[in-house]
């Protein structure tokens, strides 16, 4: 079957500044694809172009079998969107939000009403039909937004930072629901800057920075290909000094950030042995993860 979303050579500039500098990716049906990147990498603009809300300067987009932006409206009829910031309708109850949103898809009330209880149940909001939106917690609002995005039974779900600002309980619940949707055969495209989220959910991901995709692939493959196997984190006032004196002898790569040194190694025993003689330093030994890949590729400077 053809891909639910294919993007080729996408470019977009604002006032001469290139926000998307030619990117290609495509989704596999039934899989979760993650678009990762620091703030300002171009993730949200990419999503806006894919939805036909911003006209690209160049490139081809095929969403749900329809060319975008030419037939964006027809394409959007077949997908669901969970935006980065909650935009539920505060004038309506939870059930009315779903009903009114379904009407935007041209669905008749008789088609929508029987689905509402099931959608709320799925979102962990069973019995909250008449709840005022203003009384819902952040996590409940995000789940209701997810239920709203499912009102047209979409083949592809697009989520822009779905768990930003949520507490751990709420994040785990969202992840569990997204996995259930994947199990039902839906395709998911999400943007995030939480690496654990991407590692848990995504079969494929692309890391974006400054409008380009730097690398893409399966999370495990990326970790294997892009970075050393182990990380030894060293903390303490003297960590930077120790890193300058000793770390290079035992590590393939060392990064220092404030009072922490990160030693990237394929074999951790030598550096741990050396550290045994430095009781003033605390250490943490762990396997390398996606966050290490991300920081290696996009750097440690702040992006505002």
């Amino acid at each position, binding site marked *: 079957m053809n891909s639910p979303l294919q993007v080729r050579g996408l470019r977009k500039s*604002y006032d001469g500044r290139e926000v998307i500098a030619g990117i290609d990716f495509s989704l596999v049906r039934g899989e979760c694809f993650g678009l990762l990147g620091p703030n300002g990498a171009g993730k949200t603009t990419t999503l806006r172009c894919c*939805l036909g*809300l*911003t*006209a690209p300067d160049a490139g081809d987009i095929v969403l749900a079998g329809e060319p975008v932006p030419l037939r*964006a*409206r*027809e394409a*959007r*009829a077949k997908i669901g*969107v969970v*935006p980065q*910031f909650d*935009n*539920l*309708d*505060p*004038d*309506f109850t939870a059930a*009315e939000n779903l009903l*009114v*949103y379904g*009407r*935007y*898809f*041209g669905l008749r009330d008789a088609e929508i009403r029987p689905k509402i209880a099931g959608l709320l149940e799925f979102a962990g909001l069973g019995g909250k039909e008449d709840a005022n939106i203003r009384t819902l917690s952040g996590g409940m609002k995000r789940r209701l937004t997810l239920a709203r995005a499912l009102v*047209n039974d979409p083949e592809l779900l697009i989520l822009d930072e779905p768990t930003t600002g949520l507490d751990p309980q709420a994040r785990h619940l969202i992840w569990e629901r997204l996995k259930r949707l994947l199990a039902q055969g839906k395709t998911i495209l999400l943007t995030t800057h939480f690496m654990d989220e991407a590692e848990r959910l995504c079969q494929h991901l692309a890391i974006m920075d400054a409008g380009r995709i730097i690398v893409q692939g399966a999370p495990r493959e990326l970790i294997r290909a892009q970075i050393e196997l182990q990380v030894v984190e060293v903390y303490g006032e003297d960590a930077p000094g120790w890193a300058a004196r000793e770390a290079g002898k035992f590590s393939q790569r060392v990064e220092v950030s404030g009072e922490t040194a990160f030693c990237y190694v394929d074999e951790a025993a030598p550096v741990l042995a050396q550290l045994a003689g430095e009781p003033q330093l605390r250490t943490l030994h762990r396997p390398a993860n996606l966050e290490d890949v991300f920081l290696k590729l996009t750097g440690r400077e702040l992006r505002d």
Partner: protein
Amino acid sequence: MFSSPRISLRAFAVWRRNFLVWRKLAIPSLLGNLADPMIYLFGLGYGLGGLLPQVAGVSYIAFLAAGTVCSSTMNAASFEALYSAFSRMHVQKTWEAIMNAPVALDDVLAGEWLWAASKATLSGAAILVVIAALGFVASPLALWALPVIFLAGLSFAALGLIVTALAPSYDFFMYYFTLFITPMILLCGVFFPADQLPPLVQSVGAWLPLTHAVALVRPLLSGVVPQDIALHLAALLAVAVAAFWCALGLTRRRLLK
């Protein structure tokens, strides 16, 4: 950005959304829209009217009643297209949510435009009912005022949507009310016949949409067929279409960049 509007039937879903919100608060909303014009109508109508002989062939309060229908329509359409539409566009991000569904911005704006005119018609009609009950309406000819009110609502809603498309915040709307809406009430024959004004000011007033609404509604309420019907209708229609076109271009520039 300023290419022709591409409106589909989905605009009706947007209209319906606003209607559903209004219906929840219909009674307080209607009473709220009635209170302010009625205070002016009775205060000035009886207070000032007692000092005046007939104005333009009718009692002052009947003269003022027709003007009040038009100025209230203008106010209702303007408030909806400014404050309420701005809330939905900028604060609540309701439009953004709608545009993630298969509804284009053109549909959203058309839905808002028709809704603001509908709400203005509801509030104009409510005033019409009250003044008819008080005996200031001469004949069933007054029913023809309803389509005129809707058309005037479209004109003022479209003008308001232009301002909304340009507004950085709610404060911006004060300029529009102070510099455009309030002077129009004084220049367009709501409180007194416009021919009392200096000729230069009169000729400015003749170009304003409220003048054309008043020129149609006042005779209809007095039981007289208005003069130059086609001219006044064409003027209101031209403002409505041109202003909507302009508002759509500006809103596209703001939201679809």
